[in-house]
């Protein structure tokens, strides 16, 4: 596909993606930090629903031979170290790389700094990449999938994953209905935790 088609397609898909992230509220720092502090589970609910849907879609498209899968190579050391660093950044940003752009669109001022930091991080990694790939972080195992490991066709593994995720989601919703954890302003801000809510006028302890 030519660039002149790919860019408008990307823009259109991005507008839908951003619209859904905003409507689903999984761009709010309160929802993302709330998930990482295990106070709210809206991020996990939307994430697992999207994974399950994607698995069903790809089970059909790949099962019918219409598309070829694009799994990433397993680089265990880099996956763990990179994932931990990324997770630290997600908590401090209250966003992930994609939702940073949704925050900018919705008007959060600090997200501009997250974006600039992100571009700087990507450039810093780029300078380090030729050296990093010669270290243990460059050691990979190739494109391994669970369906290969189990010796089953992808479509059956993907449908099994979707079924398990659907069951987990039903349990999550039964345990914590999403409407109860969205907050009055729909931003995941549920106010200070009950145990830390001051009874009278707030006295700030000297530190």
């Amino acid at each position, binding site marked *: 596909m030519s660039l002149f088609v790919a860019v408008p397609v990307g*823009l259109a898909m*991005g507008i839908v993606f951003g619209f859904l992230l905003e409507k689903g509220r999984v761009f709010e720092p309160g929802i993302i930090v709330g998930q990482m502090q295990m106070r709210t589970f809206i991020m996990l609910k939307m994430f697992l629903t999207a994974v399950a849907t994607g698995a069903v879609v790809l089970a059909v498209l790949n099962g019918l031979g219409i598309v070829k899968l694009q799994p990433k190579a397993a680089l265990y050391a880099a996956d763990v170290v990179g*994932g931990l660093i990324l*997770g630290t950044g997600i908590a401090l940003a209250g966003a992930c790389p994609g939702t940073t752009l949704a925050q900018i669109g919705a008007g959060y001022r600090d997200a501009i700094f997250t974006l600039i930091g992100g571009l700087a991080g990507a450039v810093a990694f780029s300078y380090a990449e030729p050296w990093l790939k010669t270290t243990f972080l460059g050691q990979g195992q190739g494109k391994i999938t669970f369906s290969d490991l189990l010796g089953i066709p992808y479509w059956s593994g993907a449908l099994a*994953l979707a079924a398990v995720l659907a069951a987990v989601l039903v349990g999550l919703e039964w345990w914590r209905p*999403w409407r109860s954890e969205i907050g009055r302003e729909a931003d995941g801000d549920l106010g200070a935790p009950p145990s830390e809510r001051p009874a009278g006028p707030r006295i700030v302890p000297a530190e």
Partner: protein
Amino acid sequence: MISLTDRAWSPYVAGVLIGLLQIPAFLLIDTALGASSSFVTVGGTIAGWIDPSILTIDYVAKHVTATAKNWWQVALVVGVAIGAFLSALLSGSLRRSVSPIWARALGTSSRSVRYAVAFVAGFLMLFGARLADGCTSGHGLSGVAQLGVGSTVAVAAMFVGGIATAMLLMRRI
């Protein structure tokens, strides 16, 4: 019924619709949903204006080339900002400052502290995402749905890193 002017949709409705975006990604672009490579495409292009030698690094050259996949993803993340703007505009919930949770999470309402933390956070996110070769979209949404072993390990590490930081370093929101 859901409406475009609603402030919030069920995370399940939003999640199903986001998952369906894999259809055009695979059918039209022959790729999976992802976001973090675009930071190399844009960052590498900008850095190349100041230091053209960065363009000689294979990794950068591969990302800044005018291919459909590279610039499709840049267009995608630009679209995310536009889509979020439109959604917030329609529901009357456009933001003008920073989230109220930061004063509690960081223990200060200083705007400069928040901006500095956001910069460092962005740096860590993209350094980590590029090291792991994917973020919550590429490894999370796409890699796990494709039953990728490395992607599943990466997503688990993201949650471990995020939960540890939010619980140990940040105050309860």
